[in-house]
């Protein structure tokens, strides 16, 4: 995995660096016989086409099969779903997933225009950004459950506090809730300090047929209407049905439940989503997630350690790489391979089951994966 942030480097360069990091950490891995590139929009962000073949070349993988998988910012776990199917079907022995995106070279206005293409065309006609779409949900959630907006500030501060321990994180300085509160409003009630940044970065994982230190127990995948107004019932405004459906599928396939999960990576592209997502994933009842985050229940040693590497908010959010970074983070936590003692200690116990939750658009396309450390 590369550090996330403003790199000034090409997607191919970052992908090669992430692959080198994987080989440095694990020098005896089998050679992959299929490459899957997880990336959202390299054509718009980096003027790069034919990306699967280009990354194959950049990594020096010869003539192996190569495929691009795209599911908006959920591309990373969607790639895991495809890679796992290829391996379990017997079609391939070792599938390398490379997640990569470079978003900072365009500048924030152009990059946000690219990201806003994820929304329904009519929503874009109103000038709505992704932040604005999440703002609708965040406000409805806060008002329905009579929660104060300071919970958003406290969630952001928690993410930065953990990001400061992560050498790959884009933000490695603590920020207080007051610091967050002082940032400008971008889409009321969301402030700039509540938003994940634009980021460059790449991450790799290898999925093999043989036994490894971590096993994929189950994957769930679900979509929801592209337009928020096409969702049904007021519950659609305070949470995400696609998360609930993907989680149900993942738990069912794995034979596990939320009670079995020791550590969580969830898609907190905007503060508030950590709490909302933890409700949809089954860890808290409706209206209790954000308060649990603010109370420290998702911090080191809490009941549900979540986003111990700082999450999207502090680690950064290079959209095509985010889901793969979640898998790398969980791998390190499940195998005890985190690089900073304080972060390793964040779990307070040896984790066995990890959950990754990766969201595309306004939860239009959502994947949930359950990983298990082999004893």
């Amino acid at each position, binding site marked *: 995995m590369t550090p996330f942030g403003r790199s000034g480097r090409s997607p191919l360069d970052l992908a090669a660096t992430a692959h080198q990091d994987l080989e440095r950490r694990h020098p005896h891995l089998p050679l992959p016989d299929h490459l899957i590139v997880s990336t959202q929009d390299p054509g718009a962000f980096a003027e790069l086409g034919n990306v699967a073949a280009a990354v194959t070349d950049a990594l020096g993988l010869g003539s192996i099969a190569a495929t691009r998988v795209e599911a908006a910012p959920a591309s990373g776990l969607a790639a895991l779903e495809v890679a796992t199917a290829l391996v379990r079907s017997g079609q391939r022995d070792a599938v390398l997933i490379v997640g990569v995106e470079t978003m900072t070279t365009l500048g924030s206005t152009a990059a946000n225009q690219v990201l806003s293409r994820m929304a329904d065309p009519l929503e874009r006609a109103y000038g709505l950004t992704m932040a604005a779409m999440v703002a609708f949900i965040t406000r409805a959630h806060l008002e329905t459950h009579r929660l104060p907006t300071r919970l958003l500030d406290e969630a952001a501060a928690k993410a930065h506090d953990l990001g400061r321990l992560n050498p790959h994180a884009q933000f490695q300085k603590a920020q207080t809730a007051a610091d967050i509160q002082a940032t400008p*409003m971008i889409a009321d009630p969301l402030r700039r300090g509540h938003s994940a940044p634009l980021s460059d970065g790449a991450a790799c994982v290898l999925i093999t047929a043989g036994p490894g230190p971590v096993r994929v127990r189950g994957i769930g995948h679900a979509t929801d209407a592209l337009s928020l107004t096409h969702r049904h019932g007021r519950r659609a405004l305070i949470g995400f049905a696609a998360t609930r459906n993907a989680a149900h599928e993942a738990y069912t396939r794995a034979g596990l439940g939320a009670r079995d999960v020791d550590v969580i990576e969830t898609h907190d592209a905007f503060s508030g989503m950590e709490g909302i997502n933890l409700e949809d994933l089954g860890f808290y009842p409706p209206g209790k997630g954000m308060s649990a985050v603010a109370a420290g229940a998702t911090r080191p040693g809490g009941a549900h350690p979540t986003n111990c590497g700082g999450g999207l908010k502090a680690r950064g959010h290079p959209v095509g790489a985010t889901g793969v970074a979640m898998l790398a983070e969980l791998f390190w936590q499940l195998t005890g391979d985190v690089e900073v003692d304080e972060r390793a200690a964040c779990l307070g116990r040896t984790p066995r089951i990890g959950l990754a939750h990766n969201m595309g658009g306004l939860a239009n396309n959502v994947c949930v994966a359950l990983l298990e450390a082999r004893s």
Partner: protein
Amino acid sequence: MTGHTVPVGHCAACGADHHPVARHCPRCRGVVHRAERTGRGVVLTWTVVARPPNGSDVPQRVVLVQLDRDDQDQEGAFVLAATDDATLQTGHRVDLQSRPDGRVQAERTA
């Protein structure tokens, strides 16, 4: 601004309304018929976009409204609407008017 109507998609199978009109019912994939509903409804949530992605520096206030329906056992369609009323908030009653460009404008009613 009273007595306006808003075009919605009405599902013959499940009875749900939706906006804008889609090819199939977003709820059950049933056959959709176009219907006109009163523009009256209630604001469920709202936001103000500080810098819309079209490059404008003019903050854009957008509300999400649930339309009223005469049959109480069915929920009304959700509709996005722009507004010039900086005081419009959740719970306020509004009247919606369709614009020629397909967007909808909201105005607070008593």
